[in-house]
């Protein structure tokens, strides 16, 4: 039985356990999820992909063919505990810990998927500069109405699995709180890293509805049971996602790596659910044409593998001027390359950290500039300047979120994932 089939209270419980973390949460997860009979990972790790972010091949797909994200996530923001630059011994410690995870679980949504990334602040420890083939600026505000705090730990570990107990166990192992995972001996980061922050979340049908009793969502329990995210609509359409190839760095010492942008977003969905009509929600999420033509059934699974824009992105300004609103999808779809590919690969998920409805927006892209371009398209400032659409009002979903933190990371290729120098 998969982890999705046993009812709301169990899912709710597992989500809560992931959010709390620790040994008691882990054992609680084991009680609720049962102990899934998971294979261990390979003994010989040489066949693992060079790209840490090569997850799609090992994730499942939905009926339409879209890649389905793993359901439970933990983000560990880590500070290097030593002084100055890491030693070779430190790198070995980190690498051994990561290899332990790989041996413990298969590299899949039912097992464990993870990446490790490093901030510009980390690379600043070194005199040498990052190769020009890597675009990794410090995080900054990306809209005139936001004032995010920068996330500048040294490293970010993203753990993902369909099983809450797997991400929790992996976290504990890395932090030295357990010595075996799935009956495989594992090691920890030891005293190389200190945990600076811990963020958790989930995505997938049922989880948002089961966890909607948080600040930022009305008490009327408005989140659809079939919705994979709190805003009530499906996302991650194949056609709206960049391929892993598209987000992979092509040249230089970090070729086969990627960059990650992580923002911590608070959701404010009182207006969304209590004041906006479904017509407005569909129009603001997708496009006014989606609302007028009632293209979206339920949470939107009927749309298949693309969001059914049908050229709506080219009518963004026209819609802004005549329909009084523009869709988030419509606006964002304007950020495409010469091959009509999106620029970013979203691996975001919802959160109830701090008792607040949130979104950990994690995206992968070849250059951080690709993310900035996509975010600018989403801001729609150009549209607001030339129409009745406001800076945030009626401008996609900007009105319903605030960005608290932003961080940029280099996710090196697997060969350089453990405390890399800027010029490995």
């Amino acid at each position, binding site marked *: 039985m998969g982890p999705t089939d046993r009812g709301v209270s169990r899912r709710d419980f597992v989500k809560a356990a992931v959010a709390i973390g620790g040994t008691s949460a882990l054992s609680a997860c084991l009680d609720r999820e049962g102990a899934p009979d998971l294979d261990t990972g390979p003994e010989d790790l040489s066949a693992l992909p060079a790209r840490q972010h090569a997850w799609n091949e090992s994730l499942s797909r939905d009926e339409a063919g879209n890649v389905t994200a793993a359901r439970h996530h933990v983000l560990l923001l880590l500070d290097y505990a030593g002084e100055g630059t890491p030693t070779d011994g430190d790198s070995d410690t980190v690498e051994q810990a990561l290899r332990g995870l790989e041996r413990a679980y298969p590299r899949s949504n039912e097992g464990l998927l993870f990446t490790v990334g490093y901030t510009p602040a980390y690379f600043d420890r070194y005199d040498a500069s990052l190769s020009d083939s890597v675009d990794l600026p410090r995080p900054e505000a990306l809209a005139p109405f936001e004032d995010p705090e920068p996330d500048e730990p040294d490293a970010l570990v993203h753990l993902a699995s369909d099983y809450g107990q797997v991400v929790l166990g992996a976290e504990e192992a890395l932090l030295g709180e357990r010595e075996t995972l799935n009956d495989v001996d594992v090691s920890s980061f030891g005293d190389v890293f200190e945990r600076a922050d811990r963020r958790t979340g989930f995505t997938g049908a049922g989880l948002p509805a089961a966890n909607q009793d948080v600040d930022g969502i009305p008490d009327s329990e408005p989140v659809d049971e079939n919705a994979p995210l709190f805003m009530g609509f499906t996302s991650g359409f194949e056609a709206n996602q960049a391929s892993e190839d598209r987000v992979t760095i092509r040249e230089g010492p970090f070729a086969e790596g990627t960059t990650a942008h992580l923002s911590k977003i608070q959701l404010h969905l009182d207006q969304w659910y209590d004041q906006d009509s479904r017509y407005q929600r569909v129009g603001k999420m997708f496009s006014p044409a989606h609302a007028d033509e009632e293209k979206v059934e339920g949470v939107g699974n009927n749309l298949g593998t693309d969001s059914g824009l049908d050229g709506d992105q080219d009518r963004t300004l026209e819609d802004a001027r005549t329909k009084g609103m523009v869709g988030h999808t419509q606006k964002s779809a304007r950020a495409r390359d010469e091959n009509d590919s999106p620029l970013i690969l979203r691996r975001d998920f919802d959160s109830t950290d701090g008792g607040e409805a949130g979104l950990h927006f994690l995206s992968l892209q070849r250059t951080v500039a690709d993310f900035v371009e996509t975010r600018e398209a989403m801001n729609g400032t150009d549209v607001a300047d030339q129409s009745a659409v406001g*800076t945030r009002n009626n401008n996609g979903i900007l009105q319903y979120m605030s960005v608290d933190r932003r961080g940029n990371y280099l996710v090196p290729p697997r060969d350089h994932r453990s405390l890399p120098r800027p010029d490995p």
Partner: protein
Amino acid sequence: MDSRQWTRRDLLCASGAVGVGALAGCSGLLEEQSTGRNPPVVEDRPDDIYLPSHAEGMAMIGMQEVGGRMVALMYSFAHRFWTVTGEVTELVQPGGDVHLMASIWDPDSGTVLPVDSGLGFELTKGDWSAERAPWTMLSQNMGFHYGDNMALDGEGTYTVTVETGAVGTERVGDFADSFGESATAEFAWEYTEAARDEIAFRTLDDAGDLGALDPMEMDMPLSVAPSAEELPGQVFGSAEAGDVEFVAAVASAEDGDALVVSPRTRYNGYVLPAMSLSATLDRDGSTAFDDILTAAVGPDLGYHYRASVDAVESGDELRITTDSGPQVSRHEGYETAFTDVPDVSITAD
């Protein structure tokens, strides 16, 4: 108007918010009180500005000067309003405890900044907090403001932070170098239901008739457009359609002449923000201009729409098309108006 004047009023109102008696100074309506504060919407509403079922006052929480602008925070009881997207209006039923409002203006000119800024509220009380990007709104007795119904965490002392956002609308004249940065105003607010229920309310006998409530007598400027006589530049005509009066002028701009269109509400003359306007200028049978107008705000022109033009000559025919009416939420009495505004033509005199 000089800034000191507003600052004095600031103090007046800040103290006025404390006691019910002093509230009179900041409340435009102190008439009969009622608990049934959301009477039914009148039947057979006209597609024009009409007198609503009731009128209500508001109470000032405070005013502050931050980032070169004045920020006022006010509240009333929660009430219905309508959101607007294109020609679609959606009724928002009263919900929560209060209707929280903010207004922002230039202290020197008194020009209300009815602009795209992404303004945000954050309310905190102990561990409780709520954030909101309120709607831009238009009401008959207050004109343009930001507001929304909000649920609170009971009575007590709240800290309300107003993040103004940077003024996104083009800024002209002496505003060119102002308001480009966001500013934060923080207010302490002692909320009690009793004080809220003291806020004035009255029903209207002539509800549903064409017309509008008078602007409140406020200790802060309202978003009234400059009269045709006051409008700088050369006013060359005006026209009215769909309860919107369009005043057209030519003003000098940095890069030559600007065609200025200043739409305002019938009756109260409030500026109408967040419209999509376009215009053509015909001269002797040929088209001298055909493009969209973009929003701008200046200390003398107020909030208006404009485009660069070579010139406007006597006899030119200006045709103004409203691609969409003001995309701001409406208080009762404005929700049926301005949704389908006919084109207007003005011949330059």
